[in-house]
């Protein structure tokens, strides 16, 4: 599953909780190819809460 497929899955899932894919997306989002997505998830205000898996939040 690539990043696009993952987000398509999220967009089509009402609970938006697809835990089994968390690890896959974590590795996708930290690669250089996806640096723009990672930057979007990184916000200068640290109080912002993104409900992404821990691995991603650490990187962001």
């Amino acid at each position: 599953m690539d990043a696009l497929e993952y987000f398509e899955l999220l967009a089509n899932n009402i609970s938006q909780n697809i835990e089994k894919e968390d690890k896959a997306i974590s590795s996708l989002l930290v690669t250089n190819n996806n640096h723009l997505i990672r930057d979007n998830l990184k916000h200068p205000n640290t109080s912002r809460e993104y409900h992404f898996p821990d691995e991603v939040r650490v990187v962001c």
Partner: protein
Amino acid sequence: MRLGLSVNHKNTVYLIGSGIKSISHLTVEAQACIKQADKVLYLVNEPIIEQWIVKYSNHCSSLEDLYFSANERSEKYQLISDKIVSDSLSTKALTVVFYGHPTVFAEPGLKAIKVLDDLNVNTVVLPAISAEDCLFADLRIDPGENGCYSVEASDLLIYDKNLIKDSDCIIWQVGSVGNIQSPTYEVNNIGINLLIAKLEEYYPKEYIVYIYEAAMYPSTTAYIQKCKIKELGDNTLTPLSTLYIPAIKRNPPNLEIIRKLGLQDKF
């Protein structure tokens, strides 16, 4: 031409928006316009929606290079508008995608549509989800309750516009106040201080306002920060920030108007 929405043989331009939250905000008709057009031009806010367009369109091209080829926003918009007009003349069905709503704070699309309407090209403009729509949902606001005044931050200052205290007020691009070039994370402090001074002409310094940014990805949440007007400059503002100011008071009903409307027993 694959798109079945056109009823004659003239070229057609579909101006659409991708919404704010990637993929989630694409309407069914917007998806059809992307999938069935001969060509798609796009200027979007993040890479996933770009990947979606690349995957599902027959042929597409980004407007980003044009956007970044000029310094001032007005120049960028003119270049993009010219590109849309130019491509529309050689494309049977052309879809142009902007993020958000295609006519809300998206000047080049509307500019092009006005030119195309004079060039005998069919134009279709579809509604989409804007940041303001997201704000209404996330802050649980019904703009029908107090009315809602919407204004761009720099315009508010430069044209000395009035705020309406008995309506909710939404100030767009508050993090870009005073900036006419590409959006930047560097806030113009002079602009913010002028904005605070403007707001304090209407509201108490202690009045609570909301800094808002809509969620950009499914499974993420909006950014909502409450602060006092006088502390606006101490908070993180970005090019995506919108300021929401709740109505401060509601005018009492006009009894003379109520009498003329025959509604005396309702108030």
